[in-house]
């Protein structure tokens, strides 16, 4: 090093420039470490990122109309949906050609159930027409034959739906998630008796906040005790916290049913003590109260554990010092102890909130009608109505809502302030 002069390039022993050799070695090292984490990276990509990306895409994907009725879609583009007239013979002829192929491939009923999400009755329209298509006269005229098969083919609305959902990408599912729909006049809110999703989103957020706050109120003193008591007692207490954590979720939820129902343990006890009359038993389950109680209990460990691990690191000498300097118990706690436990509160609150916002099984069992979450509707659309596009759109909105709250949280509290121990 010391004998280098300006303009002379440093080389390694085999004559390569030192800089390049160093970069090479570094790159090799990076590659090696990348290879080490490759299994995990690939695993995360395949099992986490890819499914989420796929789900996000499903919420706008709408290739089925163009794939099933390729000719119709092209000629229908020319049709003026505002004219109030049904399309002309050319469109019906294209529909005939497409449906003959679709019926052979048995894809027409699939398209029918897709479009039925937008307009009731299209499902049976396609099923019925599919049965009749073989008997139609190949020479035409097709319009009359289609009208004879089902008079719905003469409705402007049917064709409007078909035209509106012709493109391969659709905002329809997202509009639906916002309780809106496309009409001939543009985007409108649905009639009041069909609006449900925005309301459910609101309720999910509200109940999640209530559950997070009640977890915090109940969990904070317990975590404090756990951190403050001598090890032997606190270990015993810790087992009491963890025991329910290890018990099956369904068992705990069913146990709450037994406790809270109108002929249940708590009501029986209250009636026995004479606090309430037999006729005025409390309704504590199959409503919001039930959901809040059961979910607070189930999610409590997720609040206590991060709180505990943070409180464990707070040295008792700080509080002692504060007291020796003249602070009373409350001031010592509020000004000295509490600020140090905030990272634990942050971690616990984020954990409980995010878990509860996507919770599904407990609200389903104890929520009745007023205590169910948006996730229950998502589950319904995945497993029952098969409207996966709508489920994907609702899921995407939920994901966006969580991310946005996360950003807000970061702005207010700061994500660096979250500590799990």
């Amino acid at each position: 090093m010391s004998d280098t002069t300006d303009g002379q390039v440093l080389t390694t022993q085999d004559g390569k420039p030192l800089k390049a050799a160093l970069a090479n070695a570094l790159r090799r090292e990076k590659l090696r470490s990348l290879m080490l984490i490759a299994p995990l990276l690939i695993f995360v990509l395949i099992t986490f990122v890819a499914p989420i990306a796929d789900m996000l895409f499903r919420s706008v994907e709408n290739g089925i109309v163009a794939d099933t009725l390729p000719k119709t879609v092209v000629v229908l583009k020319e049709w003026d949906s505002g004219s109030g007239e049904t399309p002309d013979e050319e469109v019906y002829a294209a529909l005939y050609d497409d449906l003959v192929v679709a019926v052979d491939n048995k894809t027409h009923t699939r398209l029918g159930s897709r479009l039925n999400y937008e307009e009731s009755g299209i499902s049976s329209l396609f099923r019925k027409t599919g049965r009749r298509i073989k008997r139609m006269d190949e020479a035409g005229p097709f319009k009359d034959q289609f009208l004879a098969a089902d008079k719905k083919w003469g409705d402007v609305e049917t064709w409007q739906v078909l035209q509106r959902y012709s493109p391969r990408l659709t905002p329809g599912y997202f509009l639906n998630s916002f309780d809106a729909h496309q009409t001939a006049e543009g985007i409108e809110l649905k009639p009041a008796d069909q609006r449900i999703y925005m309301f459910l989103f609101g309720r999910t957020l509200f109940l999640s906040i209530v559950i997070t706050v009640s977890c915090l109120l109940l969990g904070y003193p317990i975590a404090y005790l756990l951190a403050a008591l001598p090890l032997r007692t606190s270990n015993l207490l810790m087992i009491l916290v963890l025991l329910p954590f290890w018990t099956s979720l369904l068992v705990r939820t069913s146990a709450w049913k037994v406790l809270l129902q109108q002929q249940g343990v708590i009501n029986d006890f209250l009636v026995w003590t004479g606090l309430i009359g037999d006729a005025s038993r409390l309704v504590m389950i199959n409503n919001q109260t039930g959901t809040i109680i059961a979910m607070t209990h189930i999610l409590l460990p997720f609040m206590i554990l991060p709180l505990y691990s943070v409180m464990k690191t707070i040295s008792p000498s700080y509080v002692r010092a504060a007291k020796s300097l003249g602070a009373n118990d409350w001031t010592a706690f509020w000004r000295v102890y509490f600020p140090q436990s905030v990272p634990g509160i942050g971690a616990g609150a984020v954990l409980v909130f995010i878990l509860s916002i996507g919770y599904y099984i407990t609200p389903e069992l104890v929520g009745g009608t007023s205590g169910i979450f948006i996730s229950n509707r998502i589950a319904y659309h995945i497993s029952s109505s098969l409207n996966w596009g709508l489920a994907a759109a609702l899921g995407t909105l939920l994901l966006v809502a969580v991310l946005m709250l996360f950003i807000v949280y970061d702005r207010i509290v700061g994500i660096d302030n979250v500590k799990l121990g």
Partner: protein
Amino acid sequence: MKLKTVILAGTALAFAGSSALATDLTLVSWGGAYQASQKNAYTDPYTAENPDITVIWDESSAEAVAKLRAMNEAGNITWDLVDVVASDAIRLCDEGLAMEINPDTDLDAAPDGTPASEDFGDLLVSECFIPQIVYSTTFGYRSDVEEWGGKEPTEICDIFDLETFPGKRSLEKRPINNVEWALLCDGVPKEEVYNVLETEEGQARAFAKLDTIKDNVVWWSAGAETPQLLADKEVVIGSTYNGRLFALIEEQKQPVKMLWDAQVFDLDGWIIPAGLPEDRLAEVKKLVKYATDTQRLADQAKYISYGPARKSSAPLVGKHATLGIDMAPHMPTDPNNAKNTFLYNYEWWADYRDDIDAKFQAWLSQ
């Protein structure tokens, strides 16, 4: 080295042996007493006759539609025969996820030679559907309610009569059946129900009728909930599947009685997933032919109070396998029970389900 060769050869032999000798068939059903009745009546005798067949049960019928769609998209069908309700069978058929069958060639004729298509008759509601049982959704009520002063509900509209029959009711958390009952009790003739329900006013009328008891309803989503609620005295009347009530009354001896009025008939049966490989399909078809013949369907009624889907099975229904009571009077199809039945309109619900369900959910959350 030698050991390795032996192990490899052994494994290869085992694989060859298993594929040549034994076939695993995965059957999907609902679990519980119902699946047990299928095992007792269909598959146990079948595997006894065909020792090379192994039947594996999967209790996923409740999520069958979604799972079959996912399997289809993944291109790997792991189920061979799936038990679903008729409305799900129609949907699976529409989606191209279930295989179409020809009743007369794929299913056995009745002992007297009647072809299967006639023996099952109207119950073949979809090209893909192989009916097994007729069940009904009906009401059970507690027979020991003091407030009723000795009266007992005798007709469907007593559900809506809070003055004579006060107390909580349990209804299913979905519009199907509930809106029909509401309209029937609002004075709509039976044959008009679906025409009325097709209109906005008709739907509003149904919800208005349900509004009259809304505060007194516990909504259930699993068939086991109503029996539990009745046993716990949480509700005094509740709807559920008739087989569940049979178990509550006859097996658990609870003070509960059946209300056989405007009971809604529904069907349950098999579908064969589309896209099975040839060899597995052949085995499945053999099993289905056996499991849905006249005797097998009648045998099932020994274990559970659901009516066999074949007309020819009805006279063969005997006594309960363990309780020893006659099963015929407990069948939803028994003439005494089926005096006033309601037929569930599958095609109509396939069209209007999404629409009315959205309205129903909005109504529930108000």
